Structure formats: structure tokens, C-alpha cells
């Protein structure tokens, strides 16, 4: 079974003076999280879509789903964890409890604030996770990446041709991710905030999925303006 896992745990601390978590802000009167959910909702390969959000926002999220997508049992809203990985683990626990976990259980984890994800990206995530156990959506780096250990002096400038920028979805065989995560020490868990990185550090292959430059993460007020201007409300017909 393939599950969509929408990570809506962020509280929007980078979004300036807004009060709401950024995934609940609207673009042309529709919350960002709904645009993202619609993309997963219309992909028939996904058995269920699990939305993980802060406890205080669960009722609100459920109301939004009901308002925009109607009564549906394909979307469930549950509480996220303290960290990104703990949130993903909560989704795996939910799946294990309700459907059981086996080698064919795939989770497609995605930021709720990346509404421009495409059908192809989701399909390829499912395909590569099935084939390689784990995959990560990326785009080639267009800017040169500069490393600085102390934040003052450049310590390295890696070869840009080998550099990619990470997006989401990141997709995994759920059972394998759970096993690897549980084997980490508490210290490791604190440092390893990215699920794909856990795989890499444990010597597991993570396949690349080609993302899109427009698959932006709406993080700053500027991104929200970009998203507004990208979207035409009405099609041309």
C-alpha cells in the first residue's frame, strides 16, 4: 500500500508577522495545504493520505478538508511529532496500527507548503521508492554552493555540477525507515533531521527524482507573493 504523508507541523516562524502556520495561509482564497492535498487526493495510487499537524490545528485542518474536499475517508488528520522525523514516525505508527506494515508499504512524505508538486513527481517517487527503498526529489543547483564552517570564511566551494537542491516528496519503504530510525541513538536522532540523510548515513541508496524549479516551498512572505502571481484562478476556456 502507498500512503501520502503530508507534513504540516511547522508553525511558520519564518513567515514574518503572520499568526497562522504558513500552510493555512491562502492563495486566491484557498489554503495552501488544500492545494497540496488536492494533488495527493487525485492520485489514485495513494490509498490514504495522512496529514500531520500541531494538535491545536487538528480540528481546523479536518474542517478545511471537509469544506474543500467533502466527506472522505481517504484523508486522515493526526498529530505530528516534535521533530520532522518524529512526525514521520507518527505516520508510520498510524499505518502500522490500522493497516499493518510490510515490505510493500510506501510512504510519500511531502511538505504541506509545496502545493506546486506535480503528478509526475509523485508517480516517480512511488516508483523509485518501490524499486530502491528510498528516494528524494531534487533539482540541479543553479547557484554555486558555498560552505562555511564558521559563517565568516569560506571553507569549501563544492563542484556545482554535483550539487542538487532538495525538495519534497521524499519517499521510503516505511518498514525499513522505521527500523533504521529506531536503531539511531538519541543523539543521532537530534542531529539527523532529514529522513533521507538517515538512509544515506546508514549506507543505504537513495535514488534521485527530478523535481521542478516551480515546486517551491512557501516559507517566506516573498514565496507567498510568487505563488499568488504564478496562479491564474481561471483556466483559458
Amino acid at each position, binding site marked *: 500500500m502507498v500512503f501520502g504523508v503530508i507534513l504540516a507541523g511547522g508553525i511558520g516562524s519564518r513567515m514574518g508577522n503572520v499568526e497562522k502556520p504558513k500552510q493555512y495561509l491562502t492563495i486566491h482564497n484557498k489554503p495552501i495545504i488544500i492545494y497540496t492535498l488536492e*494533488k495527493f487526493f487525485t492520485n489514485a495510487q495513494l490509498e490514504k493520505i495522512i496529514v500531520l499537524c500541531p494538535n491545536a490545528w487538528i480540528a481546523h485542518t479536518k474542517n478545511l478538508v471537509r469544506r474543500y474536499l467533502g466527506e472522505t475517508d481517504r484523508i486522515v488528520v493526526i498529530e505530528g511529532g516534535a521533530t520532522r522525523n518524529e512526525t514521520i514516525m507518527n505516520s508510520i505508527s498510524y499505518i502500522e496500527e490500522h493497516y499493518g506494515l510490510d515490505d510493500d508499504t510506501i510512504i510519500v512524505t511531502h511538505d504541506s507548503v509545496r502545493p506546486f508538486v506535480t503528478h509526475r513527481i509523485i508517480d516517480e517517487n512511488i516508483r523509485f521508492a518501490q524499486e530502491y527503498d528510498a528516494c528524494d526529489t531534487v533539482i540541479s543547483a543553479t547557484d554555486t554552493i558555498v560552505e562555511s564552517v564558521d559563517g565568516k570564511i569560506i571553507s569549501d566551494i563544492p563542484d556545482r555540477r554535483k550539487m542538487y537542491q532538495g525538495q519534497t516528496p521524499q519517499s521510503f519503504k516505511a518498514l525499513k525507515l522505521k527500523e533504521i530510525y529506531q536503531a539511531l541513538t538519541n543523539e543521532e536522532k537530534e542531529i539527523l533531521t532529514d529522513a533521507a540523510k538517515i538512509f544515506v548515513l546508514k549506507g543505504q541508496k537513495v535514488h534521485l527524482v527530478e523535481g521542478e524549479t516551480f515546486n517551491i516551498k512557501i516559507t517566506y512572505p516573498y514565496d507567498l507573493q510568487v505563488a499568488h502571481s504564478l496562479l491564474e484562478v481561471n483556466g483559458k476556456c
Partner: protein
Amino acid sequence: MLNTVYRLVAPRRFEIAFTDVNLFGGEVLVRPTHLSICNADQRYYQGTRDAAVLAEKLPMALIHEGVGEVAYDPTNTFAVGTKVVMIPNRPVETDPIIPENYLRSSKFGGSSCDGFLQEYVALKPDRLIELPHDINMNVAAFTELVSVSMHAVSRFARIAHARRETIGVWGDGNLSYITSLLLKKTFPNTKICVFGIVREKLADFTFADETYLTNEIPEGFTMDHAFECVGGNGSPIAIGQIIDYIKPEGTISILGVSEYPVQINTRMILEKGLRMFGSSRSGYDDFLRTVTLYRENPEVLDYLSNLIGVQMTVRTVKDLTEAFEADTRKMFGKTIMKWEE
């Protein structure tokens, strides 16, 4: 739902746009899988349409020949995953006399509204027809073009007088190939003669009874009716020859698109008492007849598969441009894009 639309914004330049599709607007979401490039698309892409037309119509998503799979259907008409052909004509009214493709109010994807170059295409259920599950989707991709021939042949069957011993078809391109094939299937006892200018192309019309180069038409040749599938600059020559060779009371079906007005020999039209009728595009009934033909005569699909020229997988705007450029270089056949974006 956010939908990615690939629009031509200027000749040879595609850009991405996003629209919001209402998931509960009574439309089925189709994921296009195989799209076919038509000459009409090329006229926009290369900028050979009139500048005023380009200014009025662009930006616009091209492509009106395509098939796909149902991704989401709030109307419960189709099961998810059903293979369907998409009908580009979008009527907004019905008329007891005038078919949907001739109603001036109808919209047409890739001409008066966005075509199928989209992540998802949202269409009313009556704009979709289920395809056989095992059909060759590369062939099915240009069903729209086949339905245009089907439309013309059906109209001909209604309009032309009943003596149909010989029908001449002018043109050696895709439309001529399909029209000749459908004529042979519809009227198996009629002699189908095809006239073209490239011997190599005519050699592929193996189902036709006779093929001729237009400068080697045998003396004394004549025919009851004719189809013009030439278009462009060749239109006046083809129509002129047809009028010369056709018997009195014959019917001439015009299918070729010409950018410029064509002079025709009206004196001989009058003297021979000819009928001339035009056909353009197609509607639901023509698509249905075409898909029924596929089901009942699978060998038609084999013949049509000979038209597949270039096949390209398209995942990016760059791939899209390359597919259109490849299509400009091909001599014969259809360019099919396996749509994976």
C-alpha cells in the same frame, strides 16, 4: 487543484502557467499519456498564422489530438485508470440541424481555448470516450484526426449520389492516408484511387486500388466523386484537377486547410453540376464511430500504426520544444509525444 499548463506564448517558446481546477465542477480529470502534433499546432508553433491571429490566441496550450487515463472522476462515469480519447470540441449549445463542430459558439482546445498540453485535462464526461484497454496508445493518440476523416466520409455518404464506382482522393499525406483507408472500409466495393506527388509516400497506400502521381494521371481516367486532402499551396492545383477529372453530378469533399483564398473553376462546376462541400473537425458521434471502427476492425489500427513517424518522451519544456522541432523535420507520419511531465 493546481494544474500545470504548458502554453505557447510566442512562436517557438513554451512557458508554464498554473490554473486552479475545481474538483467538484462535474468534470473528469484525465492524465494525458500520448499526445500527437497536428499541422495546425505547427502553424502556431512556427508562427506561420497571421500575426493578428497569433496575437489574439496566444498564450495558449496547443494539442488537440490526445489520449490519456482517467485520474479522478467525481461524476462516477469512468473508473480510475480507464483509457480514454479526449474530444477537443466543447459545445455550449445544441442545434437540431447544425452539428457541434460547426456551431460558432463551440470552443476548441488548442484553437479557441487551452489544448491538451497540460498536467491534467478537465473535461465533461461527454467529451471522453472509453478506448479498448489493449489499444496501441501511440495510434489512439491521433484518433481526433481519424474522426475528422470519419466525419467527412459520413457526410459524403449522406450527400453524394449513390453511384460510387470510383472515388479519387487527392493528397499523399496523413489525412489522405486515413481518408482513403476509411473510404475503403466504408465502401469496400468502390475503387479508391489516390493521387499524390511523392512516389515513396504513395507506395504506402497498399489498401488503395490504384495510386498515381498527379502528373501521370492516365488519359481517360474519370471518377464519380473525389476528396481533396491537400490543403496549403497545393489546394488550387488539386481542386483544379479534381474538377477536370470528375464526372458530372459528382461530389467533391474539401478537407485540406488553406491559409489563403483559392481560385476555383466555377464554370466547370456549373457545367458538370458538381457539388462541393467542406468538412472541418468532428464531434462526439464521429469519435464514437471511430472507436467502434477500432473495436470491430482492429486491422484499421495496424494500417494506422504505419503513420507513426517520430515518438518522443516529453518530461520537460525542453523536450517539448525538441518534439515540435523533430516534427518539422519529418517527411511523413505523425509525431507522438509520450507525455510524462
